């Protein structure tokens, strides 16, 4: 090995070396709850974090660890911890970082469940959030309070596709002595590596592009190791004595991996959001082809943008790669390979036309997921974002007629033909409206 392995190689290999006894080339599924200790001293050492290893699958598992190490390698982080879903990753990360009375500054343009967690659930536990338009850098800075513990956002907002300026927001967070945590599900490390721009913690729903096949739910928290938890007194449960392990100070003991050590010791241990080994295996199968799939996603997205933009049935199209998107220049700079394979659009004829379109297409699947190898469509206002208020919908840039399209890997001519069928069905509403 003369240098570090590249992205495509890491997607296939990172985290796994065939074991000497069996030599399994594929990552084995360690479908076990527990691990036999060599003796009582060994058991105690594992509990006390004197040794690396596994003691109970709620905390860690060899198959899951391969996935974690692969995600960490692709992101350039110091460590990753996998969870049962992306929401498990986010909620646990926030609870590991925040305590009662703490405050979060968050993008207002995000996935409905992310907003719900911050707006409705965490407030019950005394953790409040100020929601700010991610493009309003001055507003983000102004919203930071003495008790603010992090800035949170999505690089590519779901489903409005607003772009967050990671470098600029990272500087605001660094100046305030708080970490920038980003949900990077839509961009994947193939499109953007946010740690290189100043982000500190990354949340993934591995269910989406990283898995890519739609067979397993999973999530991850990736630790950039680039935040100094001891620079101020804001994080006493990381840089001060913790209740666990004789008052361990994670910052002093584990340095750049302090957050991960606490996430494992407290988040996984107390909340138990563990990923099943079999799901980790499935997601690993998907990761092997991540670079190939992402290239194809972006190729088909470019074709779809051209097709939709020129189609008479389409009222509007939004994607950061289109010149009229407010974040176009920023997206081009941050993500030269493209700003993801989600497109949102509206049809002439509004909501009824959209409903007719979704119910008429056959190749595109109508379901609540994105990032699948297959093309997917959904109407966010009545599904993924139905639990958020009308005000929050408007604040989030969502319109009633919006269709969210996750561009898949099919032959583009077939997707195009399928959409033409949907447009014909929707046409009667367009005429009615006209």
């Amino acid at each position, binding site marked *: 090995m003369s240098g570090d392995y590249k992205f495509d190689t890491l997607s296939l290999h990172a985290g*796994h070396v065939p074991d000497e006894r069996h030599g399994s080339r594929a990552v084995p599924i360690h479908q076990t709850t527990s691990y036999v200790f060599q003796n009582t001293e060994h058991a105690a050492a594992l509990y006390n974090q004197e040794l690396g290893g596994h003691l109970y699958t709620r905390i860690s598992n060899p198959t899951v660890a391969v996935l974690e190490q692969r995600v960490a390698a692709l992101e350039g982080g110091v460590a990753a911890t996998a969870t049962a879903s992306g929401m498990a990753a986010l909620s646990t990360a926030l609870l590991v970082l925040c305590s009662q009375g703490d405050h979060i500054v968050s993008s207002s343009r995000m996935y409905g469940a992310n907003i719900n967690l911050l707006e409705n659930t965490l407030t019950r536990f005394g953790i409040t959030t100020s929601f700010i338009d991610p493009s309003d850098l001055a507003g983000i800075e102004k919203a930071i309070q003495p008790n603010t513990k992090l800035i949170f956002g999505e690089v590519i907002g779901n489903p409005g596709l607003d772009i967050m300026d990671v470098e600029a927001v990272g500087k605001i967070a660094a100046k305030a002595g708080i970490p920038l945590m980003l949900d990077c599900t839509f961009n994947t490390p193939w499109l953007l590596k946010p740690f290189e721009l100043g982000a500190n913690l990354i949340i993934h729903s591995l269910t989406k592009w990283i898995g890519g096949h739609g067979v397993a739910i999973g999530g991850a928290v990736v630790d950039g190791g680039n935040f100094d938890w001891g620079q101020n007194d804001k994080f006493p449960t990381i840089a001060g004595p913790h209740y666990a392990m*004789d008052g361990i100070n994670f910052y002093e003991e584990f340095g*750049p991996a302090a957050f991960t050590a606490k996430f494992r010791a407290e988040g996984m241990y107390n909340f138990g959001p563990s990923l099943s080994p079999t799901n980790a295996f499935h997601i690993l199968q998907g990761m092997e082809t991540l670079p190939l799939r992402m290239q194809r996603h972006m190729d088909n997205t470019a074709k779809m943008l051209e097709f939709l933009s020129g189609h008479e049935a389409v009222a509007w199209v939004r994607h950061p790669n289109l010149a009229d998107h407010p974040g176009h220049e920023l997206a081009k700079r941050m993500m030269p390979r493209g700003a993801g394979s989600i497109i949102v659009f509206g049809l002439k004829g509004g909501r009824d036309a959209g409903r007719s379109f979704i119910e008429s297409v056959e190749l595109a699947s109508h379901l609540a997921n994105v990032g699948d190898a297959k093309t997917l469509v959904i109407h966010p206002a009545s599904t993924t974002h139905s639990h958020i208020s009308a005000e929050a919908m408007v604040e989030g840039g969502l319109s009633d007629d919006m269709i969210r399209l996750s561009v898949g890997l099919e032959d583009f001519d077939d997707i195009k033909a399928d959409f033409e069928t949907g447009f014909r069905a929707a046409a009667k509403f367009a005429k009615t409206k006209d």
Partner: protein
Amino acid sequence: MKQQLFDTQIHIATGGRSFSNDGEALVLLHGSGQNHLTWVLQSRYFAYRGYPVLAPDFPGHGLSGGTPLESIEDMADWVIALLDSLDVKTACLVGHSQGCLVAIDAAARYPDRVSRLGLIAGALAIPVNDQLLTMSDKALGKAISVMTSWGHGPMAHMHDNTQPGHSFLGYGNRLMASNHADALRHDLVACNNYSSGKVAAAKITQPTLCILAASDRMTPVKFGNAMADSLVNSERVILNGAGHMLPAERPAEVNDALRHFLAS
């Protein structure tokens, strides 16, 4: 714990246990551009087995204040001064890489204070090429990246790890970046300038354990073997497939070997 030494606050990892100066201390000395975090999987392990562990950050490294020391001899004197300040009579010095040079120099000049030596991925001399020296001054990030890459063996490059979810390369880069900006350059210059290793080794009669890495590209194993050959009272362990960052890459074998040595 924190210790004041020469008007500088020094951070010393004690493995999560209170340090007691009663008996032989186990002092873990980090390498160039590293800090106490080199010993994450040694300090807790030995402290919880009753050893009084001291894993200090040299000045300008990790959580210690001050500016980096200029020479290996200065570092050896500093270690003895640190022992004095803690009223530690004798210590087993365990060095990694540059820490081996410091341990060897201290053992030769302060034989009544250094009872035993553990030398991990070391050599009697660690010359540094001009390109890396220049890089450490002009392009620190690149120097850190190169050293992290070269410092780790095949398993680390495949991001396999005994610590679930951890990346050796990611962690290694961030660890080095957390030091004083001048720390790496001072360390590399100190290593490059140190030429007393052979003379010092000839004076050492204390029991010594050399733990060497067969795939070490920073201090190749042939130089580690030469070091072990020159120490009259030494034993050696060579770990196949391991790179220079042995304490992190192969913690179980390193700890077992050290523990056996310390118990003998």
